[in-house]
């Protein structure tokens, strides 16, 4: 479980996150939703430690991440798998090298073992024989899958996905969502997904946190979200004219 207590973050004097607290449970797909620029990505980067928080506390399974030294944080980070918005695959490495990269750095596996692990992870995300392709040769959906394969290569305890559906067609989005959900349940991972895609919310959201203007405005399940009287959340969820017509 990941616990976030009263965290705030500002850039150049401008508050981006204000007093956010939340618990992200293990084996569940925790979704952080909100409009573009609401602070979702900053929240994710603060949790991972890519941005230092101004105040508050973050704990990974009761380990106080905020108080850790750089070296101590490294041990936690090895348990983290992260899928960035655009995949963030290493351009100069092919698919197999991208997936085996964390294994090269942190394990003493043989070349064969690493290749087997890479092939397993790639098959887990339903990619067949892309090993020798370079990121520039992959479609958007394939990049995201390779990014997931790389994220799970070291058998992480925590998985973070930043807008996994951005730039994907609805069908591929659903496939990626289902993949994240399956991996979360199968490996008992604590997963946090940033999204503003309502299909994802209704499809895989076990727990949903709504961020607005850098503050937590709402928390609940995907069932609750349809019946909330939170005006900002309703504006976000039912932003589509089609939905407004049907639901209101």
């Amino acid at each position, binding site marked *: 479980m990941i616990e976030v207590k009263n965290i705030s973050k500002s850039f150049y004097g401008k508050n981006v996150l204000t007093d956010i607290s939340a618990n992200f449970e293990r084996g569940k797909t925790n979704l952080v939703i909100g409009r573009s620029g609401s602070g979702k990505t900053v929240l994710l980067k603060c949790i991972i430690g890519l941005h230092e928080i101004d105040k508050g506390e973050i704990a990974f399974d009761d380990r106080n991440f905020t108080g850790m030294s750089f070296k101590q944080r490294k041990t936690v*980070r*090895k348990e*983290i798998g*992260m899928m960035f918005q*655009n995949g963030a695959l290493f351009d100069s490495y092919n698919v197999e090298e991208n997936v085996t990269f964390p294994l090269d*750095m942190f394990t003493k596996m043989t070349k064969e073992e690493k290749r087997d692990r890479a092939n397993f992870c790639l098959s887990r995300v339903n990619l067949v024989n892309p090993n020798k392709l370079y990121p520039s040769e992959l479609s958007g959906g394939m990049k995201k899958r390779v990014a997931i394969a790389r994220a799970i290569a070291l058998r992480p305890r925590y998985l973070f996905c930043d807008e996994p559906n951005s730039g994907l067609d609805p069908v591929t989005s659903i496939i990626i969502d289902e993949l994240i959900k399956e991996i979360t349940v199968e490996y008992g991972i604590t997963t946090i997904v940033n999204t503003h895609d309502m299909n994802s919310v209704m499809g895989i959201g076990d727990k949903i946190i709504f961020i607005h203007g850098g503050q937590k405005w709402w928390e609940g399940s995907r069932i609750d979200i349809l019946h909330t009287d939170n005006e900002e959340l309703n504006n976000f969820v039912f932003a589509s004219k089609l939905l407004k017509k049907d639901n209101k």
Partner: protein
Amino acid sequence: MRVFFNIGRYFILMRKVFSKPEKGKVYFNQTLKEIYSLGISSLGIVIIISFFIGAVITVQTAINTTSPFIPKFLIGLMVRDSLLLEFSSTIVCLILAGKVGSNIASEIGTMQVTEQIDALETMGINSASYLILPKIIASVFINPFLVIISMFIGISGGLLAAIYTEVITSQQYISGIQFFFNPYYVTYSLIKTVVFAFIISSVSSYQGYYTEGGALEVGKSSTKAVVYSSVLILLFNMILTDLLLT
């Protein structure tokens, strides 16, 4: 104030770069790759430029030293000393600052804006050390070889120009390049090269590593890398010449 901020941040980055590598073998392989991409791939341009500069120095020196009191073989000596003292170390490094410096800054800058560096940090890898240290080691290792090749090619270019244009005979040129040879000039040149290689790789990496924004900013970082590296090379050329030759 911005200058002091950048100098401070540069040294903080260098401290991060020179921390203990996560896995020596991976860094070693990475260094070999960088030796190829930063050094071996620059061989062509170094050879072409050195050859023609050697040739041009020979012809120009011959044209401008028409006095009967100046022996012809001194043209060879002037070409040799010009190449050894300045051209092969300073000018070649300025050219490499353009080619290699922009390459390093744009590569690291692109990695920064496409979150590849964040991906490394998230994995618990010291991104500064992983990306920059192999480039610095590779540059410091391979640039002296490039400079030695440049000296050899430049002097050969001068010889071919002498033969082809007949401004002096090949015997005069060869006796000139052997006349009063001071081996310390080569040492001096190589010391400068090592310092310049460090400047090119570290300053360009710094510019790339702190790129913020998108493609436009990557281009700006690349330009800054070339400009700052070149200015620092000229500044340190002055300092090192004063320290090593006077």
